[in-house]
């Protein structure tokens, strides 16, 4: 990789060990993907929940945090993805004091580096929305695909250590979705169905995601039947599911996303025409998760964290009803949305019905296996296609249904369509 003098100096340790670590990571990954040089990034979104970090990762952060400020401070605005503990509620979820202690240590270390603890995966809605053409280092698949596709910014998936490397250096290797060539559509999907709710938008993302062969596949979506222009929350669910099922970081939606807004997207020469997706494909996708019995242990609204609009919908549906004592209901939001929900009476409605509104966390990033074992939860009902894709590996038996169905089932204590 070609480095400028400042980058060389960082790599050689002239600006301290943290920036040297950062440049070493950038060069290793850049060489692996044949990057020619670096881009300067405008902001960093850092995924570092303690379930992923473990003791080893937290010790590493603590080592960085002990160094002088001029060596350890991040160079660009750096915000965090959801964490693993809501300190107000972790005990009732069966999470241990040891998990909470690890979380506290990680937070102290991050603050010492100048990282802003936003604890959200929807930073593109709630913190600082990216700008068309801006280079970023985003570290959540959902935030990356939204920033790339809907906002037209440029990032690869940058997992924790690499996002930290970008935060410490202000750089990322120039490969993948930083480059025009990689942003061209490779597979085109005609969709002959207008998704009716978040669940269907997520299912559409899942149907397309399953047909992605690798990270480098870029789908182009063309609606061929009449449809309403999608909202930010709908594209959020679509993108999060597409990224989860497909390991996909960029899509173009004709007439919607900025690089395809005039009805045409940049395309590779050997574009692949895929089968038309219809209502039946969406229904089959959702039904495949539906069980023979009607048992439900926990209803979860998360992955991605809910916007203020979504959490208000949950609260309005629950308002005046009691969640059945056999079922738990959990919703996760960012601290900013929680504060707004508190102020607007949304939290009160959810809590009065017996639901739990958690802040700064997302369900699958909280050591969900241990929570499930502690609470005896197995059957998990959610309207998030992303969550059903992830949570099976944590010992849950997930079911995908509409928001209304999830709330109805929580109230009746059994799966109800």
């Amino acid at each position, binding site marked *: 990789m070609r480095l400028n003098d400042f980058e060389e100096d960082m790599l050689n340790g002239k600006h301290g060990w943290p920036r040297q670590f950062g440049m070493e990571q950038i060069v290793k990954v850049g060489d692996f993907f044949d990057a020619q040089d670096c881009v300067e990034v405008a902001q960093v979104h850092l995924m570092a929940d303690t379930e992923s970090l473990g003791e080893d*990762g937290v010790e590493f952060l603590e080592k960085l945090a002990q160094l002088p400020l001029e060596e350890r401070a991040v160079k660009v605005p750096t915000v965090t993805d959801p964490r693993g503990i809501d300190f107000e509620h972790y005990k009732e979820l069966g999470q241990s004091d040891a998990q909470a202690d690890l979380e506290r240590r990680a937070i102290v270390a991050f603050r010492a580096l100048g990282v802003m603890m936003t604890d959200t995966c929807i930073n593109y809605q709630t913190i600082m929305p990216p700008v068309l053409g801006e280079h970023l280092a985003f570290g959540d698949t959902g935030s990356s695909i939204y920033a790339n596709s809907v906002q037209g910014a440029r990032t690869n998936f940058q997992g924790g250590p690499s996002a930290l490397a970008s935060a410490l250096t202000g750089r990322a290797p120039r490969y993948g979705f930083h480059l025009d060539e990689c942003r061209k559509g490779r597979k085109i999907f005609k969709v002959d169905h207008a998704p009716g709710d978040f669940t269907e938008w997520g299912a559409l993302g899942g149907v397309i995601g399953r047909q992605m062969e*690798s990270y480098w596949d870029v789908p182009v979506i063309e609606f061929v039947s009449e449809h309403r222009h999608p909202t930010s929350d709908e594209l959020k669910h679509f993108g999060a599911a597409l990224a989860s099922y497909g390991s996909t970081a960029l899509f173009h939606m004709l007439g919607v996303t900025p690089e395809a807004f005039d009805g045409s997207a940049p395309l590779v020469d050997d574009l692949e025409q895929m089968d038309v997706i219809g209502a039946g494909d969406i229904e089959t996708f959702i039904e495949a998760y539906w069980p023979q019995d009607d048992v439900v242990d926990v209803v979860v609204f998360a992955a991605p964290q809910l916007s203020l609009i979504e959490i208000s919908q949950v609260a309005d549906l629950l308002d005046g009803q009691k969640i059945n004592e056999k079922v738990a209901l959990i919703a996760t939001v960012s601290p900013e949305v929680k504060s707004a929900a508190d102020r607007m009476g949304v939290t009160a409605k959810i809590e009065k019905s017996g639901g739990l509104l958690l802040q700064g966390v997302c369900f699958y990033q909280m050591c969900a296996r241990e929570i499930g074992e502690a609470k005896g939860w197995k059957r998990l009902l959610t309207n998030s296609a992303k969550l059903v894709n992830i949570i099976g590996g944590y010992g849950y038996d997930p079911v995908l249904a509409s928001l209304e169905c999830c709330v109805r089932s929580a109230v009746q204590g059994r799966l109800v369509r």
Partner: protein
Amino acid sequence: MSADGGSKIINGHLGIGGPVVGEALVASDNFSARYDLDRLKGVFSRPAHKLYGMSYVDKILILNAAKGGVASAWMLKEMMSRNMGPKALILNFANPIMAQGAAYAELPMIDRFDQDVTIAVKTGDIVEVNPAAGTLIINDRK
């Protein structure tokens, strides 16, 4: 061990990490540390995965493509720190997360081969991984 006498060389892109030799564990499935593994027990825990219930610890893990989320970037090193990681990760197609995780964990990794590596190598084969050259050498099968 050498590439002579019936050994087979498979060429990939230049990889990450140092050379290593070990027993292959192979499936045509994709891979994510968060989605697919019980990292405490060191086994595949996703029921739909072809390697469900099998231990990947100290194996040359050979799978199709990196899938899923970003957590693997931290998780590979966390697994290695408890001596509960694979010996190397070999994929047809890595994604940035696996490359970042391998770089951070110093876990040997190669991808982009001249053939489907999940067909070329069989579970139980003894495989020599050389990331600096981007090669896999399969030694004589028993």
